[in-house]
Structures are given as C-alpha cells and as structure tokens.
C-alpha cells in the first residue's frame, strides 16, 4: 500500500503527503532497509544511480519527523539513522588518509547494492508468484489411480541355519542317556512345587533340611541335589515374598518360616 503511495507521487504536495504517510505507516515497514528502499523511489532514478547522500538526508529527516510526532521508532531504525549520519559525514568530508576502514564511497556503494538486491528479490518474488501454477493454471491428475502395495513376505534361512538346526536335534539325541540319568537329580521346579505345598504350615522357624523330599537323604548324590534344589526354591519363594530365611552363622543350619503378613 505504501509502495503505491511512493511510486505515484508526482508533485511536491504529493511527496509531502507521501512523506507523512510514510511516517504514519512506520509500523507497516519491514525495517530500515524497507524504508530506505521506499525513500529511494522518490529519487526517480535507477537504483544504481541513487544518491546515497540524498537518501541519508531523507532518512534522517524521516527519523526527525518521527521524533517530532512522538512516534516511537524501534531501535534498529535509530541504529540505521546513526550509521547514515556517520556515512553522511564520511561522504561530505574529504577523506582522511590516516583513517582506517572502508571509505564513504565503499559504504555507500554497498548500501546501494543492498537496496538494489532487495528490490531485485521483490521483483523476482513477484515474477515467481506470477508463474503458471499447479492447481491454478495447470493441473495434476484429478483422480490418481492408487498404487496397490503388494506385500510379499519371503522367509530366509541359510545353509548354516539348516545345519545348525539339524546339529541341534542330533546332539539332543546324544544327550538322551544323560536325560535318563536324571533320576538322581531333584530339580528346582520339583522343589518349588513341593515347597509351595508345604510353606503354608511353616509358621515358625524350621530347618530347611526337614523340607527335603523323602528318600533323598540317604544317597549323598541325591541329597546334594535335593538340598541345592530346595535351597534355590527357598530363595525363589523369599523373592516372591512368601518365605523368610535366615542362617545364624557360616555353615549353620538354614531356617525357614512363612512370612508373617502372608495369609
């Protein structure tokens, strides 16, 4: 909107109105560079031939006017004003050969470049938006045909899998005599089953040995197995919270009892 105001002003009256509009609309600007670009249009020249000195004067006047009108300008507008004041002095004063840094001309040229580049991007944006556009000027297939997805599951197995599988079964065969040997082994599962049935009656501390299954106490191998299994099962039951276990000393008898808060 402000763009229009500034591209069409012809008379000094229009210019003045525009300048006022500029100030009133300060919120509508996208920062100092936008203001500078707008101001530069009042010079009615190619951006490449813009007078940066003149532009600096215009901008400083714009900031002054804003002050008069008690319009709060954002900090970056004031920073730009300070910088332009500095630039102006550099452009007006004869160059000081002892001073370091870029010359006023270099700074001015860069500002002109920035303005030209911003304008170029705005023009490019307008051209871009003016391109033929999908869904407005040209169209995609309205009724896309769905691609059906066919999911095939393939199973893989390697020769190694196969051989290991076979080996597994065949070695199991070899273990068979060992399995047959298990009549001297009391498993923890067996012990657990047994203990679960018994702990309900274990109201007071009882030696764990008394829980060994009958007929397993005589043969040392069988006794060892049964003791180990019963101990392991006891620990399991303690872990489950059904049982309490204690041993007064190393190698002392192990005592068990039902946990008090258990029904």
């Amino acid at each position, binding site marked *: 909107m402000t763009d229009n105001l500034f591209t069409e002003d012809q008379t000094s009256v229009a210019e003045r109105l525009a300048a006022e509009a500029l100030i009133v609309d300060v919120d509508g600007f996208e920062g100092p560079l936008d203001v500078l670009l707008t101001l530069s249009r009042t010079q009615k020249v190619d951006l490449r031939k813009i007078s940066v000195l003149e532009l600096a004067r215009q901008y400083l006047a714009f900031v002054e006017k804003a002050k008069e009108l008690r319009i709060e300008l954002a900090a970056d507008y004031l920073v730009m004003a300070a910088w332009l004041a500095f630039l102006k002095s550099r452009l007006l004063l004869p160059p000081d050969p002892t001073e370091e840094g870029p010359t006023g001309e270099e700074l001015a040229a860069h500002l002109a470049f920035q303005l030209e580049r911003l304008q170029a991007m705005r023009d490019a944006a307008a051209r871009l938006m003016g391109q033929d556009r999908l869904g407005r000027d040209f169209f995609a297939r309205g009724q896309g045909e769905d691609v059906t997805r066919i999911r095939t599951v393939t199973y893989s197995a390697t*020769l190694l899998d196969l051989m290991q599988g076979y080996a597994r*079964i*065949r070695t199991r065969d070899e*273990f068979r005599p060992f399995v047959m*040997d298990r009549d001297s082994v009391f498993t923890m599962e067996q012990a657990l089953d047994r203990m679960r049935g018994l702990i309900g009656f274990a109201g007071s501390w009882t030696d764990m040995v008394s829980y060994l299954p009958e007929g397993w106490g005589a043969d040392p191998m069988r006794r060892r197995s049964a003791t180990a299994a019963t101990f392991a099962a006891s620990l399991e039951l303690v872990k489950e919270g059904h049982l309490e276990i204690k041993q007064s000393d190393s190698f002392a008898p192990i005592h068990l009892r039902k946990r008090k808060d258990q029904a």
Partner: protein
Amino acid sequence: MTDKTEGEIDSLFEAPPMAEQERMVEAVLFASAEPVTVRDLEHRMPHGCDAGQALEHLRNRYEGRGVRVVRVGEAWAVRTAPDLGFLMQKETVETRKLSRAAIETLAIIAYHQPCTRAEIEEIRGVSVSRGTIDQLIEMEWVRLGRRRMTPGRPVTFVVTPVFLDHFGLESARDLPGLKELRAAGLLENRPPPGSMPLGEDRNEDDADDGQPELFEEE
C-alpha cells in the same frame, strides 16, 4: 466451423478448431477428480464446441496407448490400460527369518528324506504343527514324496529343486554329515564335562551309515 457465413461477429464466437476442442477435453478429463459427462464438458468449453465429437477423436487417439478414454456410466474418464495394471502395483518384499521349528523340520526332511511326519516328530521329540510343513510347502522348499508302503500308507516329504537352489546344493546328499558338522564346530553344544560318559563316537557310524541309506530310497 470454417464455412460459417454469418459474418464477423459470429466468427468471434466461433468454436475453436476440433484439434483444440480435443485438447480441452483431454485436459478436463485428465484433471477432473470424477468422470465428466458430455454435458458438463460442453458447459465448460467455449460456446459452440462439440464435446461428443472431440471425445470420439480423443478416444481414437488413445487407442492402444498406455491410457484410454473410457465410459463410466454417462460420463467419461481417463484410465490406465488394463494390461498395464501390473505397473500400478508396488511390491514390497519383506524378509523374515524362518522359525526354529521350521528350520529343524526342514533339516530333518533334508537329511532324512523321504520322511513322514511321524518320523519328523520322533526325531524332533515334539509334535510338528501342520502350519510348519504347510509353510515349507508353500515356500516350495518341501513337497510331498511317495507314500510309505507301511500301514496307514503315510505321506512322505522330500525337498525340492527350489530348496537345493536356495541353499546352493547340487543334491541333498551334499549336505554335510554329522562328522563334518562336528569338524566345522557346529556341534559345539557338548554335554557338561564329566557329567556323563557320553561317547562322542557313539553316533558317528550311525550318522555316516544312516543317511546314505535314507537317501538311497529317493
């Protein structure tokens, strides 16, 4: 259209050439989400157009092409040629590892073929679910062999050329025997030392002898 004689004003409203009308129909049919009726086409096209005729032209033009102009009830639409339907499918292949039960069953069939279900179960020590053998058959790794000439005439299973191909074997006889499996460290799964007097040599003869015999039958 060219022989219009009614004057210049008319020519302003003259319908576009048929080639142009055809382009229009083409674009509308393509872009429309729904099949389009001739009436709707004419409604959209400039005054004086003959959508029906343009459609006919377009239809002929697409004859034998990858897409066709087809009639859908009272309306028209562009559709891909039915013979190219296979292109509209996107196949995704998912590879899964064969289950342990399936591998063991397959191994038993491969090493002992022809092999009945009862034999597989005897060797594995557990029953074999129907699904397992079905899966192997579906994969074309296993097929039915001759029936065993024993009571009940049970079916036997054998491995297929697809199986041999997959595992890079010339024949099932190429499968390494137990001795080789052991040499290759595949029978690492030894019983705990000292716990049993298991003769490692015990089965060796068995393994060597047993298999050729079983394979002879094939």
